[in-house]
């Protein structure tokens, strides 16, 4: 039995009702849509403001997560600053929020703070505040991205010695601590629970945070009480569009002044500037995986890859063939480490291995990340795999989404794969970070734990300047000669588009992770 019967309306009345409703719905929705304005076409946000489009949604605006590539472009050098400043071109260190640093034993480092520095909320920078900030980073419960990537538990304590001196106490000597500090943003410990994440960042930088709601622009404004030279641009609005073609279209339509991370297909558009970044595309080989457990097979892989062809065809001519997993301006780069395209040598090595009973025909996987920089979908892996098979190897391609790769390959890859593609960025300009980070016995990704390499790296860690350079070169040469775990492919470039003819900006190798608005000027 029916418990409900609809009231019957006369057709004519019903028709009127429907059309009335339709008009009302469209009218009201369009009206509410119109009311919720956000950004407008044309450049900038008024005055000498500019609009920039970025490619990644920041996952945190907490200054202690500022060294992640998704968060850095908004925070670094704009909202936040570090104690030590590093010149992005030369890699030289200079004063930042600290004016000088001294140590007698590389275990205790004293930094003198710059006087009269104010945070955006009006508070003055004090030695105690800075020490508390570093302690917050070093508290594992805060889950700071800086902890583990730049600062480790080797920093055992940070204390305020007097009003303007902060002292870092280390577990083992570290002659390059100031270099690491160049990557640590200084912020203010939040009131209440210090481990609580910060959503509205407060720093000492030339721009202060104004607003951000997910899905809309991030807005910053010039900070009037900035200790340094006032920047040219008054305000900046960061839009986020994950599609490269949409970012390029925004630039072409003049909706933004600057568009970042533009794909190679748009790298020749008006206003595009291609610049080398400190990132290198490379493969990591698993020495425990047949047939890669034979060094000759691993070396054959290195010789089988035609790097120039890859750069020309897969990377659209942007980039340069690589001999090491870091660029030549990094401390520890050795000119003796080279890779050439030599398929005959590769075949020879494979024949030798085969003669010794190695099953060089065994199938292995080339594991790639679909949306990693420079990979162009599966194109990179397909090409590399074809090159390997050309010399007689038997490889097949497995492509995963980059986040899955990150989650699975951070620890020894599950399931273990023979050959993993990755990109490595070394912004610190210290080769120890690369070599120890990829091959040290503690490194989560390393397939080896080699006594001799460990010994060289341990000596390098405690050395500085020329001695450190020599030891790191020795380590790089040792890996090339004896381990052959890291197979470099190409140093990468990035493309930025500047559409506003009045805006002057020269990108540097750090631009993709640190887009310093104060470096831009408007004519």
């Amino acid at each position: 039995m029916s418990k409900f019967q609809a009231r019957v309306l006369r057709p004519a009345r019903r028709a009127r009702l429907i059309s009335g409703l339709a008009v009302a719905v469209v009218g009201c929705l369009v009206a509410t849509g119109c009311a919720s304005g956000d950004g407008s076409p044309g450049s900038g946000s008024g005055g000498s403001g500019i609009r920039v489009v970025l490619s990644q949604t920041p996952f945190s605006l907490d200054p202690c997560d500022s060294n992640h590539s998704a968060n850095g472009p908004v925070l670094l050098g704009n909202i936040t600053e570090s104690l030590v400043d590093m010149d992005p071109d030369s890699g030289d260190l200079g004063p930042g929020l600290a004016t000088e640093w001294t140590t007698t034993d590389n275990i205790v480092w004293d930094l003198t703070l710059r006087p009269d520095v104010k945070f955006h909320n009006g508070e003055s920078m004090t030695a105690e505040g800075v020490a508390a900030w570093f302690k917050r980073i070093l508290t594992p419960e805060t889950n700071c991205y800086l902890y583990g990537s730049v600062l480790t538990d080797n920093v055992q304590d940070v204390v305020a010695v007097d009003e303007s001196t902060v002292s870092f106490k280390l577990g083992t000597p570290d002659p390059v601590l100031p270099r690491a500090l160049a990557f640590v943003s200084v912020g203010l410990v939040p009131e209440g629970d210090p481990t609580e994440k910060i959503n509205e960042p407060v720093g000492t930088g030339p721009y202060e945070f104004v607003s951000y709601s997910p899905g809309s622009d991030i807005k910053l404004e010039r900070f009037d009480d900035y200790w340094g030279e006032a920047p040219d641009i008054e305000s900046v609005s960061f839009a986020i569009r994950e599609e490269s073609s949409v970012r390029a279209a925004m630039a072409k339509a003049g909706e933004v002044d600057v568009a970042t991370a533009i794909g190679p297909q748009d790298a020749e558009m008006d206003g595009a500037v291609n610049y080398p970044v400190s990132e290198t595309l490379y493969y990591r080989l698993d020495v425990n995986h047949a047939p890669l457990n034979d060094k000759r097979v691993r070396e054959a892989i290195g010789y089988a890859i035609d790097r120039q062809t890859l750069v020309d065809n897969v990377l659209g001519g942007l980039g340069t063939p690589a001999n090491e997993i870091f660029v030549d301006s990094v401390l520890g780069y050795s000119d003796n480490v080279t890779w050439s395209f030599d398929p005959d040598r590769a075949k020879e090595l494979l024949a030798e291995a085969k003669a010794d009973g190695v099953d060089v025909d065994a199938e292995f996987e080339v594991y790639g990340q679909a949306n990693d920089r420079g990979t162009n979908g599966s194109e990179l892996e397909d090409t590399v795999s074809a090159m390997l098979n050309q010399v007689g190897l038997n490889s097949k391609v497995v492509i995963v989404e980059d986040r899955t790769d990150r989650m699975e390959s951070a620890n020894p890859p599950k399931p273990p794969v023979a050959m993993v593609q990755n990109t490595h960025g070394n912004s610190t300009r210290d080769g120890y970070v690369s070599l120890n980070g990829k091959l040290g016995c503690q490194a989560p990704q390393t397939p080896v734990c080699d006594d001799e390499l460990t010994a060289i790296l341990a000596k390098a860690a405690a050395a500085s300047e020329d001695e450190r350079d020599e030891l790191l070169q020795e380590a790089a040469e040792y890996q090339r000669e004896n381990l052959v775990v890291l197979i470099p492919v190409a140093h990468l470039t990035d493309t930025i588009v500047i559409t506003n003819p009045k805006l002057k900006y020269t990108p540097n190798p750090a631009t993709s992770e640190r887009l310093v608005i104060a470096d831009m000027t408007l004519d």
Partner: protein
Amino acid sequence: MTYFVLQRLRHGVLSLLGIVTLVFVLARLTGSPARLYLPEDATDEMVESFNQQHGLDGSIPSQLIDYLGGVIRLDFGDSLLYNEPAISTVLQRYPATLQLAAVTMVIALLVSIVLGSMSANRRGAKSDSVSRLGSLTALSVPDFWIGIMAITVFAVYLGWLPTSGAGGIQYWILPLLTLSLRPIGILTQVVRSSMITALESDYIKVARAKGVSQGTLIYKHALRNAAIPIVTVAGVLTAQVVNGALVVETVFGWPGIGNLMVTSIKERDFAVIQAVVLVTGAAIIILNFLIDLAYSWINPQIRLGE
């Protein structure tokens, strides 16, 4: 009526529970997001502490019980990406999607009813072929391609409209155009075929014999009888757009739930994925309920709750 509502409510709650459980388990099978939010060299202790803080350390069934317990208390967990309660993130973004979906469907219905009826009325004529071919094309072309082409033509070359973003009426046109094409394509075909059936029925012939005008015949008599399949299909299509126009919102940077869904899946923001599924699931269940009401309103012979 009360029985009908109660029955629907029971089905609705059960379906939601099923969907959320499924999404909850599937998301966690991809592993812990700790490695995405912590540096590559993070130690196992750091990963453990992260998991503990975000309730990812227990077994999946015990995590699920905790989560469902939270849902009863209206605590849907916190977003890893936005660092706020997941439900606020979702509810903040939902109006943008609902507005876009509603306008899209109104446009799609109006256009397809006119096109489909015209097509049915002039079956076999040139205009019918054009409309059939047009609708087939509209429903077959992928929306990311249409979106990017529309941006290239209207925003870059002609400069008439903004490429992307949200704001005044000019920001609505390209997403609406892109999003409504597929529903227009599908609905035009449905309207056409059900109108053809309706126009061939005896009562239409009688009405025509009595001299009723063609317009009244189509839009008043035939359309009403052809409406049931149209409402059914329109309902399914509405559910699709309410569920978040994933591709269109991502391409146009529309601050809606589709965009949010893509980002939260990519960044493994579990709490937000679950909240999106819960909210859209609830919306679709309500929508289906309204469609059932509409059936009986269009044709009083259909009774609810039997």
